């Protein structure tokens, strides 16, 4: 069964450095999302992306964050100047196009996550 993949699985960076987290959503999916989960806390919505543009973003997604779909398969999250509080697990997710049968269209398929540690 197709899966969402994310790389790297772990990333350690120095405060102030830029990081790019990569995701390959399931190939025919239409909506793409980034979430973060600080250790021991809830999954927080960052941004949704549809038809090559941001659909919606949360208040967490400020100017230091950006997303891009540079080609037909990758979906990236860039953090320009990392802060200590950006340390978290970052999840990518996608939803499939409408088809008959199967899981509801609103079902989110999550990747395994990238654990980001900012020192």
């Amino acid at each position, binding site marked *: 069964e197709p899966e969402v993949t994310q790389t790297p699985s772990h990333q350690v960076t120095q405060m102030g450095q830029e990081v790019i987290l990569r995701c390959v959503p399931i190939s025919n999916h239409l909506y793409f999302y980034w979430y973060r989960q600080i250790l021991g806390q809830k999954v927080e919505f960052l941004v949704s992306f549809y038809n090559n543009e941001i659909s919606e973003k949360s208040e967490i997604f400020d100017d230091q964050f950006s997303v891009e779909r540079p080609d037909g398969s990758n979906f990236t999250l860039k953090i320009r100047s990392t802060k200590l509080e950006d340390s978290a697990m970052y999840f990518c997710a996608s939803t499939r196009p409408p088809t008959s049968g199967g899981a509801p269209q609103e*079902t989110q398929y999550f990747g395994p996550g990238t654990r980001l540690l900012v020192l």
Partner: protein
Amino acid sequence: SQKIEQNSEALNIQEGKTATLTCNYTNYSPAYLQWYRQDPGRGPVFLLLIRENEKEKRKERLKVTFDTTLKQSLFHITASQPADSATYLCAPGHNFNKFYFGSGTKLNVKP
């Protein structure tokens, strides 16, 4: 602003019993509500979705109810097994643009 509440205390039950988890929401009128399972260090995995015009939805040992008057969803696992031990997240929603998750309830099923 909308608020999603799940019992933050872990639910400890004996194998074979029914686990019931609660999700309450305020300042929100979702068109549907989803339940996900999350294991430590892993991404959430979709379990069930129930729409606002549905009272109950079942899938194998899982049952979800949705009361839009009470603004509450109940999630039941019957004949629970130790393998059901995980954190369960609810996520009310109404479109594809934004999804908010509750903080989750950790379920421990003891053999």
